[in-house]
């Protein structure tokens, strides 16, 4: 409890961790770009008035693609897709993971045993493979990709929730509360959740980055959202053939992905340091 409170206090300042500050800077930059693209982008996506493969210039800051469309505008819309993927997959992982993890922790016995071995199997399973399986069955689409990544990541969340909750439930004061007749719901709200969320949030930030990377990989392989889609992975796939003429088309989406994923990883590291100052310099 006290760690959570301390963390909240530290969150108000960035003094606790420069890593965290950098991470927040990178990610919020992409967030803002995604938000701005909702109301404004330099060109409309179907505006083909530019010339073929223009280099960076005053009217097209990052140049154009083969159809003469503005690359910067596509990249901005791509940020929005990355947001959907990141939040969508993390959200799915959080919901499924918390539900299953708490279920396992609160019901020791065969429920716990079965669920635990399922989590173990799923964790051994690389996210990309699971995603490919679901996409092979569902057909390629953005939501299939998000769902697949979310389900794969939910195993990680489940395991964390399960282990942490068990640890908390085994604490003396919780056991005492239980014997006093406090209901499961109250224990959950009063003891489990407040101690759970710091670790959870750190891991969700990591999952967010993995989700963005995985979706980019799927789109690059042609297994993500079908065209017209402006996922960064898809943009990379298309720019691949023109890398000699217009290298920026292949470089820019890559850097966008790195900024967001690196930012999220920094946020995770920073949060870990903030929640547990002994971890400082140990990420």
């Amino acid at each position, binding site marked *: 409890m006290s760690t959570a409170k301390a963390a909240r206090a530290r969150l108000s300042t960035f003094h606790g961790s420069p890593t965290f500050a950098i991470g927040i800077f990178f990610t919020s930059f992409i967030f803002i770009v995604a938000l701005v693209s909702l109301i404004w982008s330099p060109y409309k996506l179907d*505006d*083909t008035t530019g010339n073929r493969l223009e280099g960076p210039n005053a009217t097209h800051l990052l140049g154009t693609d083969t159809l003469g469309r503005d690359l910067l505008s596509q990249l901005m819309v791509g940020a929005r897709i990355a947001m959907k993927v990141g939040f969508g997959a993390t959200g799915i992982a959080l919901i499924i993971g918390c539900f299953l993890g708490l279920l396992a922790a609160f019901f020791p016995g065969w429920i716990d045993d079965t669920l635990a071995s399922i989590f173990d199997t799923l964790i051994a399973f690389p996210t990309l493979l699971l995603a490919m399986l679901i996409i092979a069955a569902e057909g390629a689409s953005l939501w299939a990709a998000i769902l697949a990544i979310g389900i794969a990541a939910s195993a990680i969340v489940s395991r964390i929730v399960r282990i942490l909750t068990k640890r908390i439930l085994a604490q003396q004061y919780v056991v005492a509360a239980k014997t006093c007749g406090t209901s499961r719901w109250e224990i959950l709200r009063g003891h489990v959740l407040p101690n759970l969320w710091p670790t959870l949030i750190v891991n969700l930030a990591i999952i967010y980055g993995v989700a963005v990377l995985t979706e980019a990989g799927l789109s690059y392989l*042609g297994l993500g959202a079908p065209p017209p889609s402006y996922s960064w992975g898809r943009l990379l796939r298309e720019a691949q053939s023109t890398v000699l003429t217009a290298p920026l088309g292949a470089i820019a989406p890559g850097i966008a992905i790195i900024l967001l994923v690196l930012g999220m990883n920094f946020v995770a590291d920073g949060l870990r340091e903030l929640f547990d100052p002994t971890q400082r310099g140990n990420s």
Partner: protein
Amino acid sequence: MKKSRRSLVTAGALAAALILAAGLSACSSSSKSSSNAAPGLPTIYIGSLYEPQNLSNISGGGQGINEVFNGNVYEGLFKLDDSGKVENALADSYTLSADRLTYTIKLKSGIKFHSGKTVTSTDVKASIEAVTAKTSQSARKSSFDVVSSIETPDPQTVVVKLSAPSISFIYNLSYIWVINSDKTDISTTEDGTGPYKLDSWVRGSSISLKPFAGYWGAKPKNAGVVFKYFTDASALSNALLSNQIDVITSIQNPDALKQFESNADYTVSNGASTTKELLVFNDRVAPFNKIDVRKAIYSAIDRKKLLESIWGNHGTLIGSMVPPTDPWYLDLVNVNPYDVNLAKSLLAKAGLANGFTFTLDTPTYDPHPVVAEFLKSELAKINVTVKINSISADEWYTKVFQAKNYQATLQEHVNDRDIVWYGDPTFYWGYNNPQVTKWVAEAEAAKTTDQQTALLKLVNKQIAADAASAWLYLYPQIVVAKSNVSGYPINGLNSQFYAYDITKQ
């Protein structure tokens, strides 16, 4: 001090890795040159995007099998040379009866299959029947509907009787490979008569051909050819840039062309193409059953800009299904000019002044997705909304080609002389103009090629006037090779690629 020692170790490890890599490079270049079987003659590496699905051209091998096998491994009675002229191949001569219904074809004598068996008229009969069989998936199957019987009076003679005169019959025969009739599995092995036999096929990677010692004609000018397959156009052109292949059968990436054009180490040859990119309307369904709607859509598309986007300054605009190399070509590009106002008024005339929405079934491979996105933005100008539905190649066959369950689609049509499909109302695009059907039938029954040409010119004009489909552009046919390589075909007619004359200094 400790620090510097440790970083030295790391540096040493890195250096060792680099030396190892450099050593490997030396090994690999020496092993390449020594692996050539016949001294003096080079092995030619040919890069292509079209790996066949299997080795048969009558069970869905795709255009790739034509490219690697036609004229190289298998031969027909007749063959098309690179300019499209029909020549005798296994046929020595033929005669046509006065009623133009009976072809008597004499075979060259002493021709052997790769297995050693001598070619007889029985093999020819079996090969034709395999194409016309019920289970055949040959795209040319219906061209042989006119065949009523095939007789083999002696091992060197084939007599084919037709139910109606067919002026393209000999031309069509050039599509039929003569295959050993004893051979049961032709999807993973071969037994043909060509100058090469199959050496090995590494799926997903390459097909190697080696010269056939018992070939009846001139020996190949190389020690064998390897067709190397790539899954995307840029990987293919990169392979030529990084010296893995000698020649690209048909380049599909205009941006790589700049690298080749400005470099004396490469030769870029522009051949005549027969591959057309089509926006195909389902002419049976509303609103595309109205000529004005089709014409409106066609006129709303800036094809010049589209061609430039996809191909830079390469490729040709066309106004109908006919490429300039077909005898019945006419310049019809301006029959449906790019004119947004005209398009709007045509739509208004058809009662769709407020536009409409249609689904465009788009194959997932290049260039179709980009073309679809371009069409979407072009047609938005006349209030027509395009919904892009991505489908795989096999879905395209079942949904669009077979079930004809679609509104509009994109497809490339590679063959020459394929305007005749507009005379078939049951074809997937469902264009049904009885006059055109009649002309196409009359052209096929024509006595002379002049008559045939005159009739097909009428067809050509009519389908353009009706905007039966929207013919977007003719692909360029560009062969790029290293400058020290010569003897390759440049037209790639019907995607064939005769390899036997290719050689390297």
